């Protein structure tokens, strides 16, 4: 299935892209971030186990166990720092 993935702030700069369409044959947020980390380099570094990042699915914060469906908008970003 194809997911739309968005990146923000430091992760957008580290990965050198703001968004992409990603073909994904897994089921959950945790499996998606593991698949992205397998690209190596900055992906492996930023998405390594123990690194702190947040994921939103269809614009709602989502824990790693959240299931994904075709067409979902998934955003990956650092902890927020507004206010």
């Amino acid at each position, binding site marked *: 299935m194809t997911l739309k993935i*968005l990146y*923000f*702030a*430091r992760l957008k700069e580290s990965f050198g892209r703001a968004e992409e369409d990603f073909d994904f044959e897994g089921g959950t947020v945790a499996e998606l971030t593991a698949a992205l980390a397998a690209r190596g380099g900055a992906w492996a570094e930023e998405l390594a186990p123990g690194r*702190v990042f947040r994921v*939103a699915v269809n*614009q*709602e*914060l989502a824990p790693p166990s959240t299931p994904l469906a075709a067409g979902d908008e998934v*955003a990956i*970003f*650092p*902890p*927020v*720092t*507004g*206010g």
Partner: protein
Amino acid sequence: MERFTVAVQTAPFDAGAELARLSADPAVGALVSFTGQVRDYGDSDGVVALELEHYPGMTEKALAAIVDDARARWPLSAATVIHRVGRLALGDAIVLVVVAAGHRRDAFAAAEYLMDYLKTRAPFWKKEIGHDGSARWVEAKASDEAAADRWAGEEA
């Protein structure tokens, strides 16, 4: 009048106008406002500007959800949250929260709650710009998470 509003914008806001707008209700006995502005130190010293990034779409939803949560906890007459994005210079206002209620305790508590949750749940990110042109993403603070967490399980 829209009694509960959120806005994300690059333009400056007029805090006095928002206070006046929310005060125009005979049931309002208390108005509390908070303004956050760009200061010259943060994770680094000598900050001359901030660049504020956000997640269009999710940001507005997250702010509206935080306002709904506050309304469920306290009897509020009105509230507004305005958060600016883009490049902001030293001394520029970043965020405005105004809460109107019948009584001051509800207004103070709700305003603090809105800021605590905004800082930990709304998808904004700050980058500090130094006088030498250096740029550095601000790190999230454990103290902000603790401030939001203290509301959990506490009755209004």
